[in-house]
C-alpha cells in the first residue's frame, strides 16, 4: 500500500502522463460498458446512411454507409483493440520473460541457443510475419492475438535478458548465493522484482504496437470478420474517403489517442518506477 | 602570515544552494577562507560537507539548475569572480586557475588522444601554432613524468592506467601555468603507492611552476603528509582552520578531534586493546538548517548554547580559527 501511494506520488509529477492515464481510463470504461452504452451492438443499422457527426444528437458521431452508428462502432471497437492489445502483450510478456530470464541467468550455451532462436524471429519483418501467420491460421480473435504475441516477444526477451545479465552480477544477488538460496528463489525474489520496471514500461509500448498491428490487419481485411474493430472501420471507410472522410478519421483519432496515451503513460511509468531517481 | 600581501584567493561568506524535490539544500553556508600565494591549503571534510561544491563555486561550475551561488564573494587577485562575465570567466578557468578531478576519465575525452586534448587546452588560452602547442604537450608529459612521452601523446585515455591518466590530467591542468590549481580528491581513486607518486608530483610542480594549490580531500592522512594549512568543513560550514602541525597537534573543534580519533592508525591501536573513537549519529540534513551549531547533536561536549546559537569564529592565534562555544570557553 505504501509502495502504491509512493508510486502514484511519483507518477503524478508528470502532468501529461496523468492526462494519458485519464484517456486510457476512458477507453477502458468504453470497453467495459460497451454493452450497456450500445446494447444493440455495432452492426445494427439504426439510422439513415452517411449521417455527418453532429447532425443528429442521438447519433453523436454520425453513421456509416449502411446507417450504423459510428459511436457504437468506436465503443465496441475499443473492446477488440484493448483486448487484443493487452492479451497479445501478455503472451509476449510470458514468452519474452521466460526466454530472456533463462538466457540471462544461466548464460553460456543456454544463452547462445536461446538468443540465436530469438534472432531468427527478429530477422523477419514483424508485420510480414504477422500477415503470414494470420493467413496460415484462420483469422479469429484467438489466432490474431496469438500471432501478435508471437511477433512481439523478441523485444521483451532481449530486454529481460540484458536486465538479468547485469542484475545477476549485483552484490545483493551475490548475497543471495552466499546465504544459500536456490536458483529459482534468486530469480523470483531477487532478480525479477528488480528487472520488471523497464519491462513493464516497454510492455505499455508493445500494447500500443499491438493495437496498431490489429488495426492494420483489419484494414487489410485480415481481421476477425465477426468483430467490429477500429481497423475494420477504417478499412470500410476508405472506400468513401472522398465524400465521408469522417468515417476514416474518427476511428483513426481513436487509435491515435489510445496509442499516444499508452506511449506517454509508458514514459510516466518509467519515471515513477525508475529507482535511480528515487531519493536516498 | 605576512599580512601585507593580499591573498591570492579569498572566499567570503559563500552560500551555495541546491533546490531539490525535498527543499532547498544549503550545501555551502557562509563559508570564508583565503588561500595565500604559495600555500598548500587542504579543504578537508567528510562526504556531503560541501568541500567539492566549494571548488565548483570558485570555478563557477556549479550546475545551474539545480544549484546556485546565492551569496558571498570570491576574490581572485582582488577581482570578484562571481561578477565576471562568462567570457572572462572562461579565460580565467584553465588559464590562471585550473582544476583536476577525482576521476580523470570524466574530464578526458575518450575519443581524442592525450596530445589533442592538451594542445587544445593550450591553444584555447594562448595563440600559438599547432606545432608548438604539440611540442609543449610533449614537454608537459615529461614534466609530469609520463614515461615515453613522444609515444604517449598519441595514446587515447583508455590506454593509460589510472595513475597515468591522473598525470595526463595534471599536465593538461598546468598547461597554461595557472596561479592556482584546485585539486578535488585527486588521489582518492588511486592505490596508495600511486597516490604517493601523484602527491609527490603535485609538490614538485608547485615548486617548479610557483603554483598555489587548493587540495580537497576527505583523507586526514593526505592532509598531514602534504598540506601546510588546513580548513576543516562540516555540513557546509568551516569548523576549524590552522597550520597543519598546530591543528594535528592540538585540534580544537570536537569534530576535528573526533575525526582524528576515528582513524585507526593514530596511537597505533589494536582492536584487542582499544576501541576507535566514534562520532555517533550521522550528518544532519542540510535542507533549511536551523541557526545553531551544526555539529551539536553529534557532539559529546555540547552545552546548552550550542543547541541555540550559531558559534562565531574565534581566533586564539594568528592563522588559527575555530567555531565552537566549548573550545572558545576553554581557551578564553
Amino acid at each position, binding site marked *: 500500500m505504501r509502495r502504491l501511494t509512493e508510486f502514484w506520488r511519483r507518477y503524478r509529477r508528470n502532468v501529461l502522463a496523468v492526462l494519458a492515464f485519464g484517456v486510457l481510463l476512458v477507453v477502458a470504461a468504453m470497453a467495459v460498458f460497451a454493452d450497456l452504452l450500445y446494447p444493440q451492438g455495432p452492426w445494427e443499422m439504426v439510422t439513415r446512411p452517411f449521417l455527418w457527426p453532429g447532425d443528429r444528437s442521438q447519433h453523436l458521431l454520425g453513421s456509416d454507409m449502411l446507417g450504423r452508428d459510428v459511436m457504437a462502432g468506436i465503443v465496441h471497437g475499443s473492446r477488440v483493440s484493448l483486448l487484443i492489445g493487452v492479451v497479445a502483450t501478455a503472451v509476449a510478456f510470458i514468452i519474452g520473460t521466460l526466454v530472456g530470464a533463462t538466457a540471462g541467468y544461466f548464460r553460456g550455451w543456454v544463452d547462445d541457443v536461446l538468443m540465436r532462436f530469438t534472432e531468427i524471429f527478429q530477422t523477419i519483418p514483424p508485420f510480414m510475419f504477422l500477415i503470414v501467420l494470420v493467413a496460415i491460421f484462420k483469422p479469429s480473435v484467438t489466432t490474431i492475438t496469438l500471432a501478435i504475441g508471437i511477433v512481439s516477444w523478441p523485444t521483451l526477451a532481449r530486454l529481460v535478458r540484458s536486465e538479468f545479465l547485469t542484475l545477476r552480477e*549485483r552484490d545483493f544477488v551475490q548475497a543471495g548465493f552466499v546465504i544459500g538460496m536456490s536458483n529459482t528463489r534468486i530469480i523470483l525474489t531477487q532478480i525479477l522484482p528488480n528487472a520488471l520496471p523497464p519491462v513493464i514500461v516497454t510492455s505499455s509500448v508493445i500494447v500500443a504496437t499491438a493495437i496498431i498491428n490489429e488495426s492494420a490487419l483489419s484494414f487489410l481485411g485480415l481481421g476477425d470478420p465477426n468483430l467490429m474493430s477500429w481497423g475494420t472501420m477504417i478499412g470500410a471507410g476508405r472506400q468513401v474517403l472522398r465524400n465521408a472522410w469522417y468515417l476514416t478519421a474518427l476511428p483513426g483519432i481513436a487509435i491515435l489517442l489510445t496509442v499516444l496515451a499508452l506511449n506517454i503513460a509508458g514514459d510516466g511509468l518509467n519515471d515513477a518506477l525508475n529507482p535511480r531517481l528515487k531519493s536516498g | 602570515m605576512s599580512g601585507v600581501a593580499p591573498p591570492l584567493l579569498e572566499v567570503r561568506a559563500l552560500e551555495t544552494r541546491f533546490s531539490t524535490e525535498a527543499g532547498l539544500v544549503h550545501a555551502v553556508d557562509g563559508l570564508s577562507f583565503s588561500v595565500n600565494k604559495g600555500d598548500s591549503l587542504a579543504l578537508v571534510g567528510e562526504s556531503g560537507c560541501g568541500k567539492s561544491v566549494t571548488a565548483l563555486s570558485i570555478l563557477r561550475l556549479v550546475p545551474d539548475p539545480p544549484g546556485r551561488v546565492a551569496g558571498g564573494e570570491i576574490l581572485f587577485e582582488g577581482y570578484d569572480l562571481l561578477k565576471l562575465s562568462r567570457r572572462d570567466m572562461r579565460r580565467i578557468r584553465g588559464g590562471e586557475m585550473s582544476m583536476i578531478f577525482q576521476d580523470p576519465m570524466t574530464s578526458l575525452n575518450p575519443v581524442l588522444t592525450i596530445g589533442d586534448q592538451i594542445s587544445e587546452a593550450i591553444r584555447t588560452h594562448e595563440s600559438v601554432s599547432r606545432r608548438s602547442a604539440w611540442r609543449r604537450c610533449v614537454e608537459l608529459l615529461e614534466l609530469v613524468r609520463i614515461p615515453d612521452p613522444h609515444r604517449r601523446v598519441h595514446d587515447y585515455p583508455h590506454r593509460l592506467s589510472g595513475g597515468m591518466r591522473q598525470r595526463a590530467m595534471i599536465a593538461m591542468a598546468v598547461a597554461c601555468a595557472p596561479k592556482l590549481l584546485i585539486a578535488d580528491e585527486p588521489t582518492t581513486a588511486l*592505490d596508495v603507492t600511486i597516490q*604517493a607518486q601523484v602527491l609527490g608530483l603535485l609538490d614538485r610542480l608547485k615548486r617548479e611552476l610557483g603554483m598555489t594549490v587548493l587540495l580537497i580531500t576527505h583523507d586526514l592522512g593526505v592532509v598531514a603528509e602534504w598540506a601546510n594549512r588546513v580548513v576543516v568543513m562540516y555540513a557546509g560550514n568551516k569548523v576549524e582552520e590552522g597550520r597543519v602541525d598546530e591543528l594535528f597537534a592540538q585540534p580544537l573543534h570536537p569534530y576535528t578531534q573526533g575525526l582524528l580519533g576515528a582513524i585507526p592508525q593514530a596511537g597505533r591501536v589494536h*582492536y584487542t586493546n582499544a576501541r576507535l573513537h566514534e562520532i555517533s549519529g550521522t550528518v544532519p540534513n542540510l535542507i533549511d538548517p536551523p541557526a545553531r551549531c551544526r555539529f551539536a547533536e553529534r557532539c559529546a561536549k555540547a552545552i546548552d548554547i550550542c543547541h541555540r546559537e550559531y558559534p562565531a569564529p574565534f581566533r586564539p592565534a594568528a592563522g588559527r580559527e575555530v567555531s565552537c562555544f566549548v573550545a572558545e570557553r576553554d581557551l578564553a
Partner: protein
Amino acid sequence: MIPLLQVENLTKHFVTRQGTVQAVDDVSLSIGEGETVGLVGESGCGKSTLGRMIVRLLEPTSGTITLQGKEVAHLRGEASKRFRRRVQLIFQDPFTSLNPRSTVGRILEEPLIVHRLGGRDERRAQVEELLRRVGLSPGAADQFPHEFSGGQRQRIGIARALALSPELIVCDEPVSALDVSIQAQVLNLLSSLKRQTGIAYLFISHDLSVIRYIADRIIVMYLGKIVEVAGHDSLWDRPLHPYTQALMAAVPLPDPQAARSRERVVLEGDLPSPVSPPSGCRFRTRCPHAVDRCAREEPALREVVGGRFVACHLVTAGDGPTDIGPGGPPPPAA
C-alpha cells in the same frame, strides 16, 4: 590442531580477450578458529577474488579449500547449503548489496527462511535480535534500504551475515565506502561482535591502517601472490618484503611530524598487467633492490622466523634483508 579454514595452492585464472588473467596464483593460507586474518594489497592483487573463492562465489581453477579438514571447493546440493551456514560474506558497497525492493526485515529473514530455521514468529524475533546486535532499532525491519545512510546499510549487511551464526565471515573491504567517522563505528561493531561470538574474520582491505587495527595476522598480496605473512605488530614494526615496506611508507599518516620524519620510499612505475606478469619475482619491476636472480627465479614463500613468511630472495632465513636501503629495518640481533 586443524585450522578452521585451510587454503592450498589456490589459483584462479580468468580468460579475457586480452589473454588469461592470473588473478590468484598458487596461494596458500590458513585461518584459525576465532582469528582475524587481514588480507591487504592494492587493486588487482587478487584479494577480492581470493575472498570470493573462499565463500564459493567463484570456482577455483585449481587448488583446495578445506573447512575443518573437509574439502569444500566442489560441494553440491545439501552439503553446499550446510557450508553456507558456516561461512558468510560482508560486501564493500552498502548501496548495491541490499535488494532495493525488499524491506530490511525481509532481507534479514531470507537466510532463515532458506535454511528453514524456526517458524514465522521465531524468525521475526530473530530479525529483531539481529537488528539490536548491530545497533539498529527493531522498527528498521519495516523500512527499505534506501531510507538508511551508508553506515546503517553496512550494519544491515553485517546483520545478514550474522543471521546464520557462521564460524567465518569474509569481510570484503567493508569500510572502504564509508566516511572515517562511520568507518570507526563499523570497525568497533565488528570487533565487539567478535568478542561476543568468537567468530573468525578474513578481513580484506587496501588500507593498511585499517588492517593494522583489526587483524591478528596480516597477509600481504601483490599481483596474485602472497609476498608476506606476519603478526600485526611484527609486520608494522619490521616489514621484511620490499613491497610491504613501500606500501607502509606510502600510507598517509595523520600525524605531520611522523609523516615528515619518516623516509619516503616512493615506488616508481605502475602495476604490471596481470595478463603477462613479470618473470621471476612479480615485484621486481618496481623493486628498488631487485637483482638478476629476481628475474630468473620465482621466490618461494618461506618461513624466516617463527610464524613469519616472506617471498623474497633478499630476505634470508632468520634474517632481515640486510641490503635494504635507508628506512629499511635494522639487522636483527641474532
